């Protein structure tokens, strides 16, 4: 553990952290612009060119707002809620492989904060903790609407995590590794997973909508029924944290989707670029490829949000337990049979 290693990792961690924050910030801007585009409006255009400073203005506004505490018996939990939501949203990005090695200062540097063997399990673990942020905050709000939202959010997250995990298993059967880096390398060699596992992709996509609490699964915060749900009683930057965490989560799940199903930083012709133009150019292009895939998924999230209505609570449970989980199990069986037959 030399100092160069620490500096190198710190630089990457800071870069990844900054990237996640920046993406979450500009997702709010993009959300408004996409919504405006779909609804035939203009969207934010006052702060900066094309409204590009709007996220900063929002942040400044939220920081200077009055902090309101409801008449709650547990102020500690009330503060802990947004804290958990925010931190879990930010730490997932540690295991995402942003690119292959680059060669700088005579060293090979891996564009990933950490390549742990069980990064898939890590992602799932952190995602499951994320629901505590909503539950604890809503419980501490001492508000019936918030409580209903907590019940909805927790049961939704738990149900959809099962289907998500089962969809993931079929990928793991093919890759034989729990490391996201390994999964990416496998896809670079054999082709993207989306072509081998379209069903798993669809299940995973639907579940990530549910995990990020986005329409059509935004029952936990639907403003027309629950008046904002778990963040009804929140104000100032604590509410900002909840909103921010949602966009950070959206970014992370887009990244996971891109890494697991769309080949991560792999792009067609990567080997040729690496051989002819050098690995540095290859890694940068790889990073841009991953970034483009992530942006596509973020746009897809917004596109869906501004198009379709949301489910009702019982319909959501029905979809999760009676449709997605059986499909995921069938997918595992099919994957197993195919793997045995064509080994």
């Amino acid at each position, binding site marked *: 553990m030399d100092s160069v290693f620490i500096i190198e990792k710190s630089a990457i961690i800071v870069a990844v952290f900054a990237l996640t924050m920046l993406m979450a910030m500009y997702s709010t801007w993009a959300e408004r612009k996409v919504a405006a585009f779909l*609804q035939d409006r203009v969207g934010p255009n006052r702060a900066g060119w094309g409204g590009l400073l709007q996220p900063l203005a929002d942040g400044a506004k939220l920081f200077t707002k009055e902090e309101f505490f409801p008449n709650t018996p547990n102020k500690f939990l009330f503060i802990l809620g947004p804290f958990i939501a925010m931190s879990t949203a930010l730490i997932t990005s540690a295991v995402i492989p942003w690119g292959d090695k680059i060669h700088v200062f005579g060293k090979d540097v891996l564009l990933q904060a950490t390549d742990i063997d069980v990064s898939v399990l890590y992602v799932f673990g952190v995602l499951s903790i994320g629901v505590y942020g909503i539950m604890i905050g809503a419980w501490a709000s001492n508000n019936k609407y918030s409580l209903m939202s907590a019940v909805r959010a927790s049961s939704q997250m738990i149900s959809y995590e099962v289907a998500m995990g089962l969809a993931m298993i079929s990928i793991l059967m093919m890759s034989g590794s729990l490391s996201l880096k390994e999964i990416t390398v496998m896809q670079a060699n054999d082709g993207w997973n989306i072509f081998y596992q379209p069903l798993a992709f669809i299940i995973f996509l639907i579940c990530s909508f549910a995990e990020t609490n986005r329409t059509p699964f935004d029952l936990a915060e639907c403003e*027309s029924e629950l008046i904002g749900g778990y963040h009804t009683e929140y104000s100032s930057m604590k509410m900002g944290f909840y909103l921010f965490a949602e966009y950070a989560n959206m970014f992370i799940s887009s990244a996971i989707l891109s890494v697991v199903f769309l080949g991560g930083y792999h792009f067609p012709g990567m080997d040729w670029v690496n051989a002819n133009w050098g690995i540095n150019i290859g890694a940068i292009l790889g990073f841009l490829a991953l970034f483009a895939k992530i942006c596509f998924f973020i746009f897809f999230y917004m596109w869906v949000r501004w198009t*379709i209505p949301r489910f009702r609570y019982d319909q959501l449970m029905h979809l999760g337990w009676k449709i997605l989980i059986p499909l995921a199990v069938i997918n595992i069986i099919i994957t197993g049979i195919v793997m045995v037959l064509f080994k």
Partner: protein
Amino acid sequence: MGKVVLPADHRYYKYIEERHNEDGSELAILNLGPTHPATHGIFQNILLMDGERILDAEPTIGYIHRAFEKIAENRPFYQITPLTDRMNYCSSPINNMAWWMTIEKLLNIEVPKRAQYLRVIVMELARITDHLICNSILGVDTGAYTGFLYVFQFREKVYEIYEEICGARLTTNMGRIGGFERDWSPKAFELLDTFLKEFPIAWKEFENLFTRNRIFIDRTVNVGGISAEKAMAYGFTGPNLRAAGVDYDVRIAQPYSSYEDFEFNVPVGKSGDTYDRFCVRNAEVWESLSIIRQALDKMPEGNEYHADVPDYYLPPKEDVYNNMEALIYHFKIVMGEVPVPVAEIYHPVEGGNGELGFYLVTDGSRTPYRLHFRRPCFIYYQAYPEMIKGAMLSDAIAILSSLNVIAGELDA
């Protein structure tokens, strides 16, 4: 949600006590309103909830009661129109026209055909905006926001037409006894033509977004259904009754303002559920567009826009300054000293969301002796608790917006 503490004479008391003894689970009381975003106005529902399921509901009204009926008893007839604006503010020209027609019925005034057709056009425009808002708000309440803002710009276009006709947009105070206050400008007809060209395209897109959407169908079919018998027993009218399968439409049952000259269908539903109400309103928008086109085609030549009733219709300003008689008429009309017979009449029209009636009793004085508004929203809201019993919280929101209960009209 904590143990519910209620006085022993509360109607939920027995309910809650029984359930506590039964299996140890607790019920909760949830205040839906008075300031809940989905009520789109101010009214309260005290719901007894078992988790997400609604066991009982107790509606409360009167949060924006402005005593319009009482105020009307102290106002000359022509000053009552601004009150009618503020009832169903989504379709205020219908209310205005209904009030003028009530007075014309009282005074036996024959309105020229052209003015009647102009009234039909403006009333159908108002019906379109009313249905447009109701259906797109149903989309908002089920979570699809885009349809709402997408078609909302066409309400803006309609408001521009209103602005061209009477100068106001939301609370229009449009028309006078015997017709309109001025002739429609060529600009108004121009705007109307553009609207008739552009709106159908957007409305078709809006329909496509919802009518075959799986999630929307799941959310609305068999939600908040009401049988035809029950709907009639409650006194339902308008789209909500037609969705239950009763083809009652005031425009056909008791034609007014020359509605008998136009050909249009009365769309009816089957089960009276939220989806049927949505589809009936969608279909009615198409019928309204067809009526507007027919009225423009059949519009009589000339520029007559009001009846010749000098006792009640204000003379032109130059006459008032130069002409003794006109000045006297002007003075008497403005002071409200117009001859009014002693009578008791009821005039219904097909409002944006049901039969809107004015029951007027006069004693020959300058103000009504009694004026009662038959407000359809008031009647729908009585049935609301029964319709949401056993439904889930999300259903309650969807049912409320599909009934198109507008607080201003509910409380008057």
